[in-house]
């Protein structure tokens, strides 16, 4: 155990080195573009950690990223590559919004109800690819990509057609009717104040944050404290060994795929229930693909995914800061994000080679 700790230091080093190197590259690009690096750092600081309001924004930006990463990670744990988080959160959000628009309930029931509805919606959208995967061995990458495209067309149809709320809301942008006030995700400042932390009024965090924390804990508990989680991890490590050990691989993969879809269903809730208050097919897209990168950087563990999501949220806000206060374009952040992922994974590899070499030396 002691030896493990000694090497753990090196393992934590890899992401830090990756982050530092990519920040250095960012500064290099800033200089090339002809901006003062001091200004750039200042701009990033102003938009991220200068005030508690900004920090809360980073935290709140990380919520959908965390949920998307968690959804991808859970599937990866069972050796399933769920590229379909994208479509699953569009449908999950739609089903959640339907529960929020058409089902009147008292507030204390309504929020849990829409959360569960969104999870069911996401799981349903994963169901056909999951069934095709386990029953006919059809590669989930192909089916989930197809289902992403089908989902986009479907929500586009529903929002423009049967679920259109144009007359009711007076907006020109295609959208549904407004969600009932009882289902909206309000400000959670009262929770902080209840524990004696007097946050300023300008800090805005909504219910999606506690939902994400609870879901993160739930995933951790399932993966590392329940028998089913053990099965999932066993299947992810080796399907052959799992079969040999009597684990019902098909059932485990089906369950993991559906649960991944359920988690994906939550990704859009913040934007729909806290920001917009209605549903539209124009909610932020691409989070499913961010989720893949976040899951892999976070090494498919709930804690790792949380850190990776915070990192992505920080970068996103940093990009806005650069765009707002300097002449560095926002696109720099995509360049840096891509490079950072590559540097982190390459240094992970180099570190594990180094540890291997050290172990060999010690063994001799």
């Amino acid at each position, binding site marked *: 155990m002691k030896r493990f700790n000694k090497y753990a230091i090196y393992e934590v080093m890899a992401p830090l080195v990756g982050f530092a190197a990519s920040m250095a590259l960012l500064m290099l690009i800033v200089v090339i573009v002809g901006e003062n690096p001091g200004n750039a750092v200042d701009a990033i600081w102003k938009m991220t950690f200068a005030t508690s309001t900004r920090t809360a924004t980073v935290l709140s930006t990380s919520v959908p990223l965390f949920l998307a990463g968690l959804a991808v990670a859970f599937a990866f744990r069972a050796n399933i590559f769920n590229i379909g988080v994208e479509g699953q959160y569009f449908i999950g959000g739609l089903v959640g919004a339907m529960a929020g628009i058409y089902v009147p309930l008292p507030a204390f029931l309504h929020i849990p109800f829409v959360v569960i509805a969104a999870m069911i919606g996401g799981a349903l959208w994963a169901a056909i690819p999951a069934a095709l995967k386990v029953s006919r061995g059809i590669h989930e990458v192909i089916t989930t990509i197809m289902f992403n*495209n089908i989902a986009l067309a*479907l929500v586009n149809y529903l929002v423009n057609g049967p679920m259109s709320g144009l007359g009711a809301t007076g907006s020109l942008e295609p959208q549904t009717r407004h969600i009932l006030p009882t289902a909206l995700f309000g400000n959670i400042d009262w929770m902080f104040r209840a524990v004696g932390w007097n946050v300023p009024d300008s800090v805005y965090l909504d219910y999606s944050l506690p939902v994400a924390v609870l879901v993160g804990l739930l995933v951790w508990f399932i993966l590392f404290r329940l028998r089913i989680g053990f099965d999932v991890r066993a299947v992810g490590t080796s399907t052959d060994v799992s079969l040999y050990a009597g684990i019902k691989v098909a059932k485990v993969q089906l369950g993991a795929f559906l649960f991944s879809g359920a988690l994906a269903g939550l990704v859009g809730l913040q934007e729909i229930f806290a920001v917009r208050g209605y549903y539209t097919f124009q909610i932020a897209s691409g989070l499913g693909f961010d989720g893949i990168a976040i899951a892999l950087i976070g090494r498919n563990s709930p804690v790792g995914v949380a850190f990776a999501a915070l990192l992505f949220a920080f970068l996103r806000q940093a990009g806005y800061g650069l765009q707002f206060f300097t002449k560095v374009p926002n*696109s720099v952040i995509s*360049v840096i994000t*891509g490079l950072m992922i590559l540097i982190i994974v390459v240094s*992970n590899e180099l570190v594990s080679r180094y540890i291997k070499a050290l172990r060999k030396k010690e063994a001799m």
Partner: protein
Amino acid sequence: MHWGTLFDYICKGLDTSAPLAFAALGGVFSEKSGVVNIALEGGMLFSAFSIVWGSIIFHSLWLGLLFAVVIGMAFAAIHAVVTITYKVNQIISGVALNILAEGIARFLSQNIFGQETQSAMNPYSFPSYRGMNVFSLVVIPVAILSWFVLNKTVFGLRLRSVGENPEAADTLGINVTLMRYSGVLISGAMCGLSAAVLYPSRWVSGMTGGRGFIALAAMIFGRWSPIGAVLASLLFGYADAARISFASSIQIPSQFVQMFPYVLAVVVLAGVVGRSRAPAADGIPYEKGED
């Protein structure tokens, strides 16, 4: 329906199929050598930017195309170094490269053309015949050549052997690393070719619209064979062209017409194709024998 309309449809379908087919062929080479390349999307996007950029710099479409192919290969080379030399997870590298491609193209566009989301107009383009970029036809010889190279040459045999059983190939003296680099670099060159059909007259951010992923699907659908991949691309391309050509004359909501190619793909896969098998060592980094 007039024969003329049908003929237009045949041409239009080839135009929408060709970028998918080039990219899918690239995917076949990469995955046959054992490297999953989900950076096809990024490669296509960056190449599409490069062909516009290169044509304007060199005042020649052919040099622009060459430039796009070189850039496509250089981009794929990053994937090769990271996944083959450093043995990093191939999916994470692909995801990172897709993010990177979008960022670099937008960054360069901002600095070269003064706009982040689109380039300047490209005055050079391949001639168009009934809505079809004539370069689309090049996909036919390229597909036949790919089939020949993979199945009838020593190089092809070696490439496939490192994707199926790298240990055995290594034992026989085949350079696994070299073969895998070749596979990935060819996929980059194919992304460059796809750019020649893809760009209309300028580069626009997000113009690939997930075509790299559809190409990946076509490759799997075509069971990792060059001819199969091209036929699957034609299926997707023609379904897409049907949407464009006939959407106005069909009495159902356009969104359902839009879904059609994807629903078709799932139904065909579920009903007809059955189990498809990837190359055995696809996605697995090769560790040269030690311990």
